[in-house]
């Protein structure tokens, strides 16, 4: 190949790359504009922030997974000692609105996740996934509990705590190093703020005191 041909091939390759990058950028912007319009039409005060970082509290992000693109920080409020915010998750053109509330509290054990069991968890379980089973069949069927320290999970989730969790049926509860998080479906409203607060308080009140005593 002549040197002119070689240069032309290089220019073509760079042009294709730039065109692709530009197309990616424009589609992301378009998606953001569409999302903003949808959020405003739905009555949310939209802020395209991605600063909220659950890892700051030792929690796991709720927006991870192959089909989950972005968690949009929409609104936040401070209610006494806990933080709550509504998130809108956009995935393949559909929107899921959920609210999380976080109460700062140190965890004397390992990270724990208590999730409502769904078909995905059942499939994982049948493939040998490490769900912690409890003596209550009803509870074990309804919730998917993960914790590296199984003893800690047993200490926290005692029969009274199981009843409490089954009474409230929250979709997801996480206990990280420094915070307890609860997730519910739907936006943040004046009604569900006290509901979230009471749930978190009730959860903490049911954690055996000896666990915290061990920590000090």
């Amino acid at each position, binding site marked *: 190949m002549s040197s002119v041909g070689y240069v032309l091939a290089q220019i073509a390759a760079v042009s294709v790359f730039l065109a692709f990058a530009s197309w990616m950028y424009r589609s992301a912007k378009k998606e953001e504009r569409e999302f903003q319009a949808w959020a405003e039409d739905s009555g949310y005060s939209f802020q395209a922030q991605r600063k909220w970082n659950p890892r700051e509290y030792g929690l796991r992000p709720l927006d991870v997974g192959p089909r989950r693109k972005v968690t949009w920080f929409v609104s936040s409020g401070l209610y006494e000692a806990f933080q709550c915010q509504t998130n809108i998750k956009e995935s393949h053109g559909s929107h899921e609105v959920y609210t999380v509330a976080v109460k700062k509290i140190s965890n004397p054990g390992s990270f724990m996740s208590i999730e409502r069991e769904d078909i995905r968890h059942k499939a994982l379980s049948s493939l*040998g996934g490490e769900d*912690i*089973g*409890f*003596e209550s069949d009803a509870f074990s069927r309804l919730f998917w509990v993960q914790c590296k320290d*199984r*003893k800690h999970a*047993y*200490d926290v989730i*005692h029969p009274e705590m199981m009843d409490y969790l089954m009474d409230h049926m929250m979709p997801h509860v996480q206990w990280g190093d420094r915070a307890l998080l609860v997730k519910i479906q739907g936006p943040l409203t004046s009604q569900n703020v006290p509901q979230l607060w009471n749930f978190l308080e009730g959860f903490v009140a049911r954690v*055996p*005191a*000896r666990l*915290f*005593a061990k920590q000090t």
Partner: protein
Amino acid sequence: MSGFLIAVFIGAPILLFVIMMIYFYNRFQTLENRCDESWSNVGTELHRRHDLIPNLVRAVKGYAKHEKDLFDEITKARALIKDEPTPKEAQAAERALGGATGRLLAVAEAYPDLKASKNFLQLQQELVITEDRIQAARRFYNGNVRDHRNATRQFPGTVFKAMFKPTEQEFFEVEPIKAAPVSVNLS
């Protein structure tokens, strides 16, 4: 080509069986280790109980010397405790000891001076905490036994159970000793 297909048809099930064999062998080992570890936790908590009971007996003896039969019963129950008991043995021994200690606490109710003594109140508090810890350790142990039983008694675990013969695990039940209600400060 047909030779290759025959090899695949014969080899694939054998390979799958070998993978499952390795998986189930490791699973049984893991579950047995979990049971052993949690049983040793139960043992530690029961040891706390055994250390506490002679102190309770001494405290009651100071006020109710004539309850000789009851003290003898506790001594006999303590003699049943083995160094490394199986869950079944521990269950029988703890039931006898728990019953006798419960009666000891009931006797103590009849002595207001004893009930008010600082030493006795402290021992009762310790007993409440110890019983709580025993119940937590027991729940965890029984949870591990349940997982072990599910793995060995459900298909295809039953097939590999016959092959590897994992140790059968026993549940452990123990009634907590009921102390008179005392306020416990854990802070």
